[in-house]
């Protein structure tokens, strides 16, 4: 990839919004994820019948409204482009809360990565009974300091920028991602988000 393309990608992301690890697994794959930041804690299980689709249940402790609820949620791979040295994905996601049809979310996210570079974004709109809405956006850019082989520990140095309706401004903070085998751990720390952490296990 030329330096010009890379700079354009960087500009695109910094002007807009980024994303987490793969939201759809391989066919027949099960995934458990947990996320935690200043706004919510969640535990999410999903099953992927195909590489294009996952369905699951997410349990959320929403710290902003001090409520617990669950989502029945689904993610679709809208588009994937493979090359020998890169992969790009676009996903759509949505979910309905255990609180009823008035509480739901929908969104889109995408990523593009090579073995050395990663970029991604996410947009997620949450509607709670038509009045308490949240619009979360994030951008994630990363570089692998070394290229690990299959089964090695893979490390990524990243920058995450995010904003939601509870934040006055975009917040950008360092982000570290590690994965080995079926386990992925990533985390960052920002002034508003505090510790923002994500754990994923596939089986």
């Amino acid at each position: 990839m030329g330096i010009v393309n890379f700079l354009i990608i960087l500009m695109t992301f910094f002007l807009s919004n980024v994303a987490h690890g793969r939201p759809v697994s391989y066919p027949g794959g099960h995934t458990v994820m947990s996320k935690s930041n200043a706004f919510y804690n969640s535990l999410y299980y999903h099953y992927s019948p195909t590489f294009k689709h996952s369905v699951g249940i997410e349990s959320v402790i929403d710290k902003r409204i001090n409520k617990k609820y669950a989502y029945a949620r689904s993610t679709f791979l809208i588009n994937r482009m493979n090359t020998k040295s890169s992969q790009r994905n676009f996903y759509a996601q949505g979910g309905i809360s255990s609180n009823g049809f008035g509480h739901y979310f929908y969104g889109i996210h995408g990523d593009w990565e090579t073995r050395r570079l990663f970029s991604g974004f996410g947009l997620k709109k949450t509607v709670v009974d038509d009045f308490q809405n949240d619009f979360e956006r994030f951008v994630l850019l990363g570089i692998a300091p070394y290229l690990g082989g299959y089964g090695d520990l893979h490390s990524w140095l990243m920058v995450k920028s995010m904003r939601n309706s509870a934040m006055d401004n975009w917040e950008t903070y360092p982000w570290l991602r590690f994965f080995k085998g079926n386990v992925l751990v990533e985390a960052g720390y920002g002034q508003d988000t505090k510790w923002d952490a994500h754990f994923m296990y596939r089986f």
Partner: protein
Amino acid sequence: MKSIVLILAFFSVTAAANNCHTEANADHNHAHDHAQSNAGSGKSVNIEIDEDKLNKMTAGLSNVKVAVVGVKGMVCDFCARGLEKAFKKDKLVVDLDVDLEKGRLMIVYIAEKNIDYNEISDTIISNGQEPITMQVREI
């Protein structure tokens, strides 16, 4: 509106970047691309084989066949996990190696296995990656 424009910008930029990769790879691996159509017909074709890796994988083995497959989109460890699981469901698979750097799968089968490019191709495609070419070696 701004978000939609930026998503479209992301789509366009990554498509352009991917095309650059594809063109670069096509230039660099012209012979491999030619091999792809041959592979589709089920014939063995030329593909660079890491002989050291092949020797390590097959050390102590005899009466095996090794399929070496070029795969597009196998750029991360997580991407390749599904391929390993899918191929290892086949009881005729003795061993499997994933080479992320070269985008290659090396699948060792027992000699009785009738290696079919289309079967391997379907497995790869159903995991979200794309096969490029394949060569089979008997040991």
